[in-house]
């Protein structure tokens, strides 16, 4: 535990983080790129079309990994927010904000690809299915976090307020999901089932896993890159940052 906290504190100091990020960003992006290419080729060309849905089903190779990421990023973000608030590690505040932006985009991708898939398959762009509704609420929560961060002038307290909201949000997300589920069963709406992951044929499965890995790597690279940029921006007046930028003064 002690070693972990020490590691956090040393890597968390802005100049160390800069070096850490500079080293790892290309690695994660390279891995993401390889997986993305492999998964896309596999998903679009190699696996056979689905027996019932035909070619349109291939959109799940974007949709499902993005949906997984929309929740995964929230969990990662909440852990970072917790660390940021409890141990006051500055870099974790930035990581939280960077994650929020990425999570928002993944959630938006999920909703958009879902509607594109839904139109030919269900015959409608949107349905008030519990999963769709809670994904929409998730989008609003992400937007709220970013909105709060942008609304407060002092960057430090903006990040802390946003981190606090993340922790409120992580309690709320499961409750929203549960309540919306209850609401939908009450209304006796037709429950349209998405393709169950476990029910998916094995041969269609591998590009999905590769794509899921690709999005994880992408997230790691992207979150480091965004945080690195914010970090440099905040530390622009410090000695080490000036030296890094080749400032000769």
């Amino acid at each position, binding site marked *: 535990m002690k070693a972990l906290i020490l590691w956090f504190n040393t890597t968390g100091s802005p100049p160390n983080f800069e070096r850490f990020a500079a080293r790892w960003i290309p690695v994660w992006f390279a891995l993401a790129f390889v997986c993305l290419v492999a998964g896309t080729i596999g998903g679009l060309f190699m696996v056979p079309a689905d027996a019932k849905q035909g070619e349109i089903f291939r959109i799940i190779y974007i949709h499902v990994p993005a949906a997984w990421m929309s929740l995964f990023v929230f969990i990662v973000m909440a852990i970072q927010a917790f660390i940021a608030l409890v141990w006051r590690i500055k870099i974790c505040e930035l990581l939280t904000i960077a994650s929020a932006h990425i999570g928002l985009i993944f959630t938006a991708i999920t909703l958009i690809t879902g509607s594109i898939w839904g139109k030919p398959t269900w015959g409608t762009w949107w349905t008030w299915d519990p999963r769709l509704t809670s994904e929409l*609420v998730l989008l609003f929560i992400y*937007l709220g976090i970013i*909105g709060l961060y942008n609304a407060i002038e002092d960057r430090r*307290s903006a990040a802390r*307020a946003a981190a606090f909201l993340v922790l409120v949000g992580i309690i*709320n997300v499961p*409750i929203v999901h549960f*309540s919306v589920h209850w609401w939908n069963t*009450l209304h006796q709406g037709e429950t349209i089932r998405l393709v169950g992951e476990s029910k998916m044929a094995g041969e269609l499965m591998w590009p999905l896993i590769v794509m899921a890995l690709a999005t994880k790597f992408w997230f790691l690279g992207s979150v480091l890159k965004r945080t690195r940029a914010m970090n440099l921006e905040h530390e622009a007046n410090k000695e080490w940052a000036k030296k890094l930028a080749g400032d000769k003064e």
Partner: protein
Amino acid sequence: MSAILPLFMAQCRRDLRLSLRRRGDVAQPILFAIMVITLFTLATSAEPKKLAELAPGIIWVAILLSSLLSLDSIYRSDFDDGSLEQMLMSPAPLSVLLGARILVHWVSTVLPLAILTPLFAQMLFLPTDLLIPLMVSLAIGTPLISLVGAVIAALTVGIRHSGMLLALLALPLYVPVLVFGAGSVVAASQGLPWLGAISLLGAGLVVAIVLAPVAAASAIKISLT
């Protein structure tokens, strides 16, 4: 430990006195809710049968919006005249002071709405046997709205034009309250058991009573430093 209750009562008395001196403010949320209901009927239909079907949802949304608009006033005046900072610096636990503040806010702005619900129900032709589920759901749901809203309002207290942002932040958190609150009435109208949703709301309320003042206190600390 023993000093907490007198402290709580003293804060309640102060806040109650303050809101009594601005008695006119109490009418505003009520007028707003009545306006929303009127607009709903004008926008949808005046047919009693249709309105009765929509009534639980409309009443819940009207009360939700009305209390949302009054959220900002929980801390606004205390923030403007600096007493919020005094509370923060005082040795008394901030969560107790804020708990009192939230309670008074609920009593002075939201409770009148809940009490007037029979009037709203009459305006929308809600069947009389649904009035009890509606009142019970509001009695348990509206304190929950105030408590959750107080946490969010605490985060935005330092922002000057926070109205829209506050709504954007608070509404996603209100989804479960609205679903269970309005849902219990809908369940009752369909002859389904409706106490289950009320119990869940009650459970949420208990959790919120314990956690929300503490959370609001730490949110205030974040936004004031």
